[in-house]
């Protein structure tokens, strides 16, 4: 693709679906214009470009919209063929990356909603499911870093790293919010090392939602709304 491309991303600062697209654009070295969307006051463009869901993120490339974060990431990978690749070349390895991306995107995010918005027994039950998922993911990550030592010195961030960053890099702030450990360095050492290595990449910390802001402005009020509804304002 030549330099005359117009790339616009409609996103929202607190959404991991949005930040993962930004991260991918940066890894691929694609210049883009960013439009911050306010859920209470969506731009007419957003409603036009994603009429079915009216949600972010939406990538508009030369006037044509693409919606759904993982669809956007695949689109970016397929269109910008030169430079850093987000997926491995080998089809089976590619399938393995997609499997874990899908795993994080569905199973983990679903159960974390329960963990963040509940307490007591309900939360405990959800947490035990989270630990099971984390153990499985730890095994999964091991297949990409066989020596058990994730680093990014020799290679660029890939699709799984990008999605993982958008979802996991705020984990210690979330742990503080709910007062419980989610990712244990002893029980899931490779997963923990992977996330630590991701957090050390400047490109990741510059792009993902700042964890403290995410917790204080979004997650804490959201949790309060369920646990102490009479105390919350909205």
């Amino acid at each position, binding site marked *: 693709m030549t330099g005359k491309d117009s790339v616009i991303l409609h996103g929202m600062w607190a959404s991991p679906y949005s930040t993962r697209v930004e991260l991918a654009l940066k890894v691929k070295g694609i210049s883009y214009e960013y439009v911050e969307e306010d859920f209470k006051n969506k731009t007419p463009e957003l409603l036009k470009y994603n009429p079915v869901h009216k949600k972010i993120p939406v990538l508009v490339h030369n006037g044509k919209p693409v919606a759904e974060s993982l669809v956007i990431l*695949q*689109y970016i990978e397929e269109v910008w063929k030169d430079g850093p690749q987000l997926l491995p070349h080998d089809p089976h390895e590619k399938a393995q990356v997609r499997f874990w991306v899908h795993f994080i995107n569905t199973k983990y995010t679903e159960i974390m909603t329960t963990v963040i918005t509940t307490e007591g027994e309900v939360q405990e039950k959800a947490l035990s499911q989270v630990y099971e998922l984390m153990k499985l993911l730890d095994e999964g990550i091991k297949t990409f870093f066989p020596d058990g030592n994730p680093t990014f010195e020799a290679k660029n961030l890939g699709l799984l790293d990008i999605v993982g960053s958008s979802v996991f890099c705020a984990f210690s702030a979330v742990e503080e919010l709910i007062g419980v450990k989610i990712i244990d360095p002893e029980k899931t050492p490779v997963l923990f090392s992977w996330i630590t290595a991701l957090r050390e990449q400047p490109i990741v910390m510059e792009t993902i939602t700042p964890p403290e802001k995410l917790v204080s402005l979004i997650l804490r009020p959201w949790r309060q709304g369920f646990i102490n509804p009479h105390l919350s304002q909205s």
Partner: protein
Amino acid sequence: MSRKERSMEEVKVIGFWTSPYVYRVTWALKLKGVEYEYQEEDIWNKSDLLLQYNPVHKKVPVFVHGGKTIVESGIILEYIDETWPQNPLVPTDPHARAMARFWIKFVGDKMRNFQGFFFKRAGEEQIKAVKEAQEYLKILEDHGPEEKKFFDGDNIGMTDLSMGWLAFWLEAMEEASGVQVLEANSFPRLHAWIRNFKQVPVIKENHPDHTRLVAYFKRLREMFTKPATT
């Protein structure tokens, strides 16, 4: 190994006869003329083999190629399309491809809305669930193929395969629960698509037997709509 060499290796599909997700995979293989071995798995009595092949989700379909395993029908379809490029399942234009994947995701995400009515006993809740299913189906109807025969154009593709549930399973669920959801008058485009889809030779010769499927769904419905015992 070259792609050509890889494409010659043995293919195996582990499935269950009632699963639309399994059919997506076997339809794709047949459309591309790829030989495969099929192994029926009883999902109500899972074998050790299945648990070994898919330890994370313990589900079908499981796709094995040259000894390597892939699960999740969407991921399997992408792999199949990349490994056997003849009769491509996705458009060549990247934006059209993105639209296909958008609709595939939509169908996957909304499956529980489409099927909710099936798990309700006759009455208020069922009526509500039918309305909800119709709301979401209306979105497919509105964006359904206008001039083209299929969602993917003149020939069927990944989007159509992912919509296969509408063609055989929805009608069986409707019959088993005694309700009509996809009325012909309200959903002319989807009805036309279903007719065209069922005419495609690979599809016509490979789908679950309607009578058997209805009986299966009737039994399933009995299980799920049993009144709670005290």
